[in-house]
């Protein structure tokens, strides 16, 4: 084929920045509109609440994004959060030091992620299936461990953390920054981040270029499990209980946040800042809907509709290429 006049295409980095700014503008616009439309939205109390709620989804969404970039999906994250609340609550109530309880909970998340990697890489299961299977199994295991009851956490130090703020900003939001900065460096400035993209774009080409595809897949699911377990710790601190049925449907919120943030469900397109903004946009929509007295069932419908619309446009963009 002959080569002439290749249409000039904007470098991808610029597009990413532009898209991030658009999301940010959308978030600010929503905040301004809701501040005008309702009296309570801009109150300190509501904003803190919004940040707390959004933070947890945001952290899950970052882990989820790593997985989606490789072309996979992690449906188990909501169940991992619920299961993690149980683990951390039981350990604290059994008298273990808080730091140890948290560490073990995080390791449980890592183990679950490794198991997903094993299922995908070694057993050849589709990500959808293996993570769907752990979704239901983890809820079951959690219910067995607790006999179906909630565990009240008897440590005020632990629960106080989630209620407190540091220089006026809720601690939970600081956790987003704690996760977000290393995640950003990992995804955008390390070679492992590059490998996530290359595997999501073309696993065979990556393998032939010397990328360890299996290790990359293990890594993505492990990080997703780790993020989810971390959110489980935060949630347990926030509600003061361990309950395996908590965080029901959060996997969808995490996926929706990621997708709203520009991650392509077809793989190889995504960022860290996008899903973070996506999570807070979603949290704002839900929060605003509450304040506007919109039936809360509608929020689920809106989330579903958003996913369809955004993935549809993502597909259009891909086919347009």
């Amino acid at each position, binding site marked *: *084929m002959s*080569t002439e006049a*290749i249409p000039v*295409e904007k470098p991808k980095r610029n597009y990413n920045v532009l898209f991030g700014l658009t999301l940010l503008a959308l978030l600010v616009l929503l905040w301004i509109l809701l501040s005008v439309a309702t009296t309570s939205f801009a109150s300190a109390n509501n904003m803190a609440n919004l940040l707390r709620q959004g933070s947890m989804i945001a952290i899950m969404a970052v882990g989820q994004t790593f997985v989606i970039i490789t072309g996979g999906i992690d449906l188990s994250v909501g169940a991992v959060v619920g299961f993690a609340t149980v683990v951390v609550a039981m350990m604290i109530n059994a008298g273990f030091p808080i730091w140890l309880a948290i560490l073990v909970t995080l390791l449980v998340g890592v183990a679950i992620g490794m198991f997903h990697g094993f299922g995908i890489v070694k057993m050849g299961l589709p990500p959808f299936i293996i993570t769907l299977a752990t979704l239901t199994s983890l809820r079951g295991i959690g219910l067995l461990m607790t006999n179906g009851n909630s565990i009240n956490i008897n440590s005020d130090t632990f629960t106080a953390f989630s209620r407190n703020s540091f220089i006026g900003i809720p601690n939970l939001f600081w956790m987003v920054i704690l996760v977000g900065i290393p995640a950003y460096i990992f995804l955008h400035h390390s070679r492992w981040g590059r490998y996530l993209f290359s595997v999501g774009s*073309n696993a065979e*080409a990556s393998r032939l270029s*010397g990328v360890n595809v299996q290790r990359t897949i293990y890594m993505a699911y492990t990080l997703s499990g780790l993020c989810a377990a971390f959110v489980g710790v935060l949630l347990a601190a926030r509600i003061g209980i361990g309950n395996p049925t908590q965080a029901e449907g959060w996997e969808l919120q995490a996926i929706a946040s990621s997708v709203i943030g520009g991650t392509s469900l077809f793989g190889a397109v995504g960022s860290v800042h996008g899903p973070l903004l996506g999570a807070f946009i979603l949290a704002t929509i839900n929060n605003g809907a509450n304040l506007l007295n919109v039936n809360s069932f509608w929020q689920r419908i809106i989330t579903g509709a958003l996913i369809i619309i955004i993935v549809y446009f993502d597909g259009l963009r891909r086919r347009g290429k």
Partner: protein
Amino acid sequence: MTSTAQELHPAPVLEPGRTILELRGLEKRYPGTHALKPVDLAFKSGEIHAIVGENGAGKSTLIKLLTGVMPRTSGEITWEGQPAALATPHEAMALGINAVHQEVVLCRHLTVAANMFLGEENSRFGILQQRAMVRQAQTIIDDLGFDLPAHVTLGDLTIGQQQLIAAARATVRGTKFLIFDEPTAYLTRKEADQLFTLIRRLKGEGVTIIYISHRMEEVFELADRVSVLRDGTLVGTRNIAETNDAELVKMMINRSIEQVYHKEHFTPGAALIEARNLSGKGFENVSMTVRAGEIVGLYGLIGAGRSEFVTTLYGRHRKSAGQILWEGKEVQVNSEHDAIKLGMALAPESRRDQGLCLNLPVGFNLNLPIYKRISNNLLISSTQEKTQADRQIADLRIKTPTRGALASSLSGGNQQKIVIGKWLAHGAKLFIFDEPTVGVDVGTKAEIYRLFGALLSKGAGIILISSYLTEVYELADTLHVFRRGKLVATHGFHAASHEDILTQALAEKQEKLGGQI
């Protein structure tokens, strides 16, 4: 462009039928590529019209336009005197235009009979008449003289046999215009003969046949007329009786063979890699050596075991027996990673499936094998990332607006340069090129061959796989011929004729091409 051809041949000599399909100013542009420049061409009923051209000349684009797989950018198509949109494959089939592709596009899990009637099943009151269909299919197959059962699963047949079924399928559907796209790439001599018989028979029934092939011998054996494409342009159309091999090649490449297939000879150095009685999936008992400064060519039918052999050297597949020696020492190559560490680089057969991350930037693709080298323990050096990518883009003259443009936006030739270029900074010693010039224009081809010379001069060794005999014939210092997983012959540079090599690649002992009819 055909105006020249028409001037040369004002009155076509061959006039057995009326014009069935006429193209006026047919044109196709992709982003970044002018794949087909305005083409005027008329096909007649009952003719076998060969279309030849180098890889990337626009043959597949033309087929895709004729079969409605892709919309044209501009131009007119007239079918039996009426304008035809040919916007969908369905429309093309309704008119009677069918294609038999090199890769069989049928349902491997269904039976031969089910495939023959796919979409036109014979049913009574909604119930499939399975036995009747098998019977009918068998009658058709027997009638065509193919020795194949209709009740078996298609996937159980060889690719060559599947191809015959695909051809048979096209014939029973009221086909008036049948396109064969490199049909013999997978076929043994016997299967090819059966196919040629079928093609001649269809011609006798007034069907127009478009025959696309790399093999000149087949063109001269079968065709009535031949059209030559080069870089998206129709260079001319000839009656087969009035042209010869040399003229067609000259039309195809527009310069001498030496200019395109620029070959530099170096004195070979020490052995880089040696395979001793190596066996694996798809090949057995292959021994060969590649030395520094030489090109070792592997020729054979698709599926003859060439690609399987090199991917095994490269650690993609496990060997089942034999040894691999790297610079004289036996090594275990258990993964691509091991191979790359030793100093091997593979530019695989399919850019799309194996070579590139298409929806990622050019620079990303170029740096993929060397990210480890251009990062410290944690971070990638963004300056190195930029300079490395820009250097390859400049050195290889990759036509891209920036290193940030997506690989998918580049033309085939430039994409191929990325596939090759990503290994240049890596410092590999052995380069394996599997079909490096598929879908690449003549100019880029010559550049790629020059690059081979540059690599050899730096002491690298090259394994070159090609289904295009001219390519390996003109470039390889040592040429190995593969047939059915075995290495059947080895020749030095220009030491055997094209015909001998073809015969060795196709079958044990068979009459020469063109001997029957």
